[in-house]
């Protein structure tokens, strides 16, 4: 049987790097992407550097979403609740308690970890269409809660973080969130850390179990795995990364508001992942970049620019359900996972 998926024989991995890195080409691509992004700040205009900063943070959100949707095969319609959890936990602690930026960031991550674990415990008792509706409803309740408690959260109007809450010192150097360069590099550093962490999770033993659950859950059970716990792990990691993105967004841009927890943000995570390629490491970044630029352009032309979201969702779903990188993987580069 001749099949062109027969690539190099499996690395038996005796040397130390090969023991950790099983998909060397993908890892090289990850490093090259990070280096390329770093170089952008020297060639792009200030406006575009700011746009890329936002893209990087939203890409972290989409990467979190992809962990669940792409790698584990569970389609959530409510990930804005985790983005919002991180955003509010970080932003509110900074606003009311005056915690320093790193501490607020950590609070945001921990809050979304706890929140996604609890929601996962409940939502994962359902499957398929029910799972989608349950996540949608929980997210809607969370969004409405941010409006209901508007005395604390600022509701629709939101809250702007005070200027003195927007800088911190890192090893003696002042990090000021009103500086475009600092924001860009901070966002890039965290994006890079999440991307590398995602590489090790998805290409390692845990990622193997996620794929196993996605491809055939009953069989995975009969191989000795408690698949509910596997799904819960995927859900919690996914929610936590999404919350991390939310915390970063709130702190970097100094503003928190209900809209970030709304339906549209859940759909953005889905859209970015779907366009870039579900179940590919770099798909979310690509999808976020393409869609953000497109929406940005259109918003200059018409007020109804969000129509493009609907059009793309339908088109991709009909003709490119594997997204850009997923299609490339299928046609040419099987290691692009």
């Amino acid at each position, binding site marked *: 049987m001749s099949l062109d998926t027969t690539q190099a024989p499996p690395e038996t991995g005796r040397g130390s790097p090969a023991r950790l890195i099983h998909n060397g080409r993908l890892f090289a691509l990850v490093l090259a992407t990070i280096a390329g992004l770093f170089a952008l700040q020297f060639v792009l205009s200030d406006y575009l550097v700011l746009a890329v900063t936002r893209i990087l943070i939203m890409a972290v959100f989409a990467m979190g979403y992809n962990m669940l949707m792409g790698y584990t095969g569970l389609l959530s319609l409510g990930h804005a609740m985790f983005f919002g959890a991180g955003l509010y936990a970080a932003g509110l602690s900074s606003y009311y308690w005056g915690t320093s930026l790193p501490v607020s960031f950590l609070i945001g991550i921990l809050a979304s970890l706890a929140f996604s674990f609890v929601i996962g415990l409940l939502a994962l008792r359902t499957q398929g269409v029910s799972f989608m509706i349950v996540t949608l409803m929980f997210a*809607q309740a969370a969004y*409405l*809660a941010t409006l209901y408690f508007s005395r604390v959260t600022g509701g629709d109007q939101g809250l702007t973080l005070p200027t003195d809450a927007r800088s911190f010192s890192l090893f003696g150097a002042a990090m000021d969130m009103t500086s475009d360069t600092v924001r860009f590099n901070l966002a890039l550093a965290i994006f890079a850390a999440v991307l590398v962490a995602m590489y090790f999770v998805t290409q390692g033993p845990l990622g193997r179990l996620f794929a196993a659950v996605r491809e055939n859950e009953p069989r995975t059970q009969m191989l000795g795995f408690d698949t509910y716990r596997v799904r819960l792990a995927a859900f919690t990691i996914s929610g936590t990364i999404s919350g991390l993105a939310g915390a970063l967004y709130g702190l970097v841009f100094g503003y928190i508001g209900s809209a970030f927890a709304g339906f549209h943000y859940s*759909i953005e995570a889905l859209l970015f992942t779907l366009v870039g390629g579900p179940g590919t490491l770099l798909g979310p970044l690509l999808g976020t970049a393409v869609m953000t630029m497109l929406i940005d352009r259109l918003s200059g032309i018409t007020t*109804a620019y969000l129509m493009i979201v609907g059009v793309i*969702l339908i088109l991709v779903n009909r003709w490119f359900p594997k997204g850009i990188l997923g299609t490339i993987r299928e046609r040419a580069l099987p290691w692009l996972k």
Partner: protein
Amino acid sequence: MDLAPYLLLAGLEGLVQASVLMLTALGLSLVFGVMRVVNVAHGEFFMAGALIAWACGAYIPGPPALGFIAGLLVAPLAVGALAWAADRTILQKIGYNPEGTIVSTIGMLYILQQGALLTFGPDARAVDAPFYYTIRTPWFGYSSYKLFTVAVAFALVAALWLLMRKSKVGLLMRATQFDRETALNFGIPVGKVYSAVFAIGAMMAAVAGVLVVPNQQAHYLMGTDPLLLSFVVVIVGGLGSIPGTIAAAVLIGLSDGLLSVFFSPTLAKIVSTLLVALVLIFKPEGLFTVKGRRA
């Protein structure tokens, strides 16, 4: 303070809301029951019906009643045709795969909502009621139009019931719902039945939109609430069960009317969305169906 007038008013308001909700939710329930499709764009069909009713009222000269009647005819036909086309060109082409279907109907939601923004602008549009007779009670006057809505809604539900139970079309629908494969083997044009069901479901939402618009202004973002409440009704009543849907619509419409007199509407919505999630998790067959048997 005497509580009776408040309760009567809240009860009447609840009844009006329940009847509109019943129409909208039955559309969603029918589509899910027969096609196993969760139509996230359902609220936008409602919104489209409302805006078309406004356009009929605004551009057709003569008394408001004329525009209203035109809206009652044009809105469901236009929205039904749109839904029929959407089923043919989108849902059918992806084979009604559950996840793809939800993602596609979310796409439709954006297209319809933004299309409405593009066509009608961001302003809320008020529509005159076709008639203004006020019914007197000892404490307050009540709009006869609102009671008319209740009557129309119940009449339409009765018509749907007759269609499903007594007509050949209804028989085809029920056969398809019961077992798609067998229906195909018996030569039932399942594809056409699906398109018809999707269109009828959308038409019910559109009619509800027409009925509601003299009481509530038409606006491109107005589809969210009816979608959410329909979800609540359909899931609490048991997915795909028509009697359960009717019971849940009346219960939720009434209690929502009563609750929003005493509590914040946001709080009421939080409670109802959580209720949907918890019912799906712990009692997925709905609250009104006996386990293992679907009414």
